[in-house]
């Protein structure tokens, strides 16, 4: 019975992925992608990866979906003819100009098919057992937290996580680099709808509270900095929608401080203990729990700030005048 659900879920995921790439309308594509993200989140839950599920739903489906939706306003909604070509090979057969494309496409399909077969074989042949569960279980008490995923993220593999926080900041810098938009420019007033505003104002504390809850619970259960950061970032995004651009209120230095706080504090803390004679990111076991909570809180703030800023920047992209390279 339960395996049936998994099979259905797997088929659904594959179907949604296919459809979101083959859909003829861009909006369909994006909505199907949304659905794909949620299906994937369900799959994570089925696989017992609740942390991943929250992250997936929040960032990959939620945040990215919002970005895509926002992009939809930008790109023309018309059917893209080429896309239809792709869906029906017969169509392209009848067209003269597409004939030259047929061969490469055929080659692509064949190549991918072959690749898929080998991949399936390779995945199938994976031997049993051999993960790091046992190692993690033994060392968990020394990590300062009770939830193994958090222990891995913020203690055992803290270096990766630190770099990852850097990547988010980097994503923001990269988005700046694209548009050359000044960081906290006053946004164009969003829809000043009283209802929306009220709803957003209602949700703000709820989201904040929920984020804080996730942050705290990360110590002992699914949750943590990333999930909390995304939720807090959602506050910023929602406020932006409601015409309340929080980030234009903070001064530049403060904005930067918020953005870099997580990354820098994480590193400085690491350096501090390194100077004390240990390795980078090596916390004394007694204080590890507390330190991790602080690091997580600051990281969540930085992530929230970065996500808000990324969204705000992308959101403003359309309103720019064309041909304005905006390098000031």
């Amino acid at each position, binding site marked *: 019975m339960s395996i049936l659900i998994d099979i259905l879920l797997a088929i659904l995921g594959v179907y949604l992925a296919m459809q979101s790439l083959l859909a003829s309308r861009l909006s369909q594509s994006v909505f199907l992608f949304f659905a794909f993200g949620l299906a994937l989140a369900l799959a994570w839950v089925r696989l017992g990866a609740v942390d991943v599920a929250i992250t997936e739903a929040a960032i990959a489906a939620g945040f990215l979906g919002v970005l895509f939706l926002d992009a939809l306003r930008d790109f023309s909604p018309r059917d893209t003819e080429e896309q239809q070509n792709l869906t029906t090979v017969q169509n392209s057969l009848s067209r003269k100009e597409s004939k030259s494309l047929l061969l490469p496409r055929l080659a692509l399909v064949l190549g991918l098919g072959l690749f898929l077969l080998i*991949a399936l074989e390779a995945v199938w042949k994976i031997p049993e057992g051999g993960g790091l569960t046992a190692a993690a279980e033994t060392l968990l008490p020394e990590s300062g937290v009770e939830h193994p995923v958090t222990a891995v993220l913020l203690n055992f593999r803290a270096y990766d996580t630190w770099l990852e926080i850097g990547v988010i900041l980097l994503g923001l810098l*990269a988005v700046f680099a694209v548009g050359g938009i000044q960081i906290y420019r006053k946004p164009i007033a969003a829809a000043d709808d009283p209802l929306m505003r009220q709803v957003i104002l209602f949700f703000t504390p709820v989201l904040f509270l929920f984020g804080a809850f996730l942050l705290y619970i990360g110590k002992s259960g699914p949750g943590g900095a990333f999930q909390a950061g995304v939720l807090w970032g959602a506050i910023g995004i929602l406020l932006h929608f409601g015409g309340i651009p929080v980030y234009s209120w903070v001064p530049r230095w403060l904005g930067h401080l918020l953005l870099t706080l997580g990354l820098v504090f994480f590193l400085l803390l690491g350096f501090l203990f390194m100077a004390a004679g240990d390795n980078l990111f090596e916390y004394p076991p007694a204080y590890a729990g507390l330190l991790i909570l602080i690091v997580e809180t600051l990281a969540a703030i930085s992530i929230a700030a970065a996500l808000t800023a990324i969204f705000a920047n992308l959101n403003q992209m359309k309103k720019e005048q064309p041909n304005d390279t905006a390098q000031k």
Partner: protein
Amino acid sequence: MEIYQIYSLTSAILFVIGLGGVFAARHFIKKIIATIIMGGGVFLCFVSFAQRDALTFADPVPHALVITGIVVAVASAAFALALARRIYQLTGEESFTNDK
């Protein structure tokens, strides 16, 4: 067939779909979506292996890796989206003019 195997096989399929999409799709947005689907496949692969070795809890390392991976993938995707939008804004192009 174990449950995790359903997902690990699915992961290979998703990866291939995404890979094909990156090459075959024309529109920028679809190409970006295709990369995320590829990523989804890879992450599914990781997590399905984690489930396989579950003792008292599933292997936490792949979970942590996947969380890191998702965030990294999203950051890249957001950047790609920004590029795509900017290109559209400047030139009105929605796909690469000379297909590779």
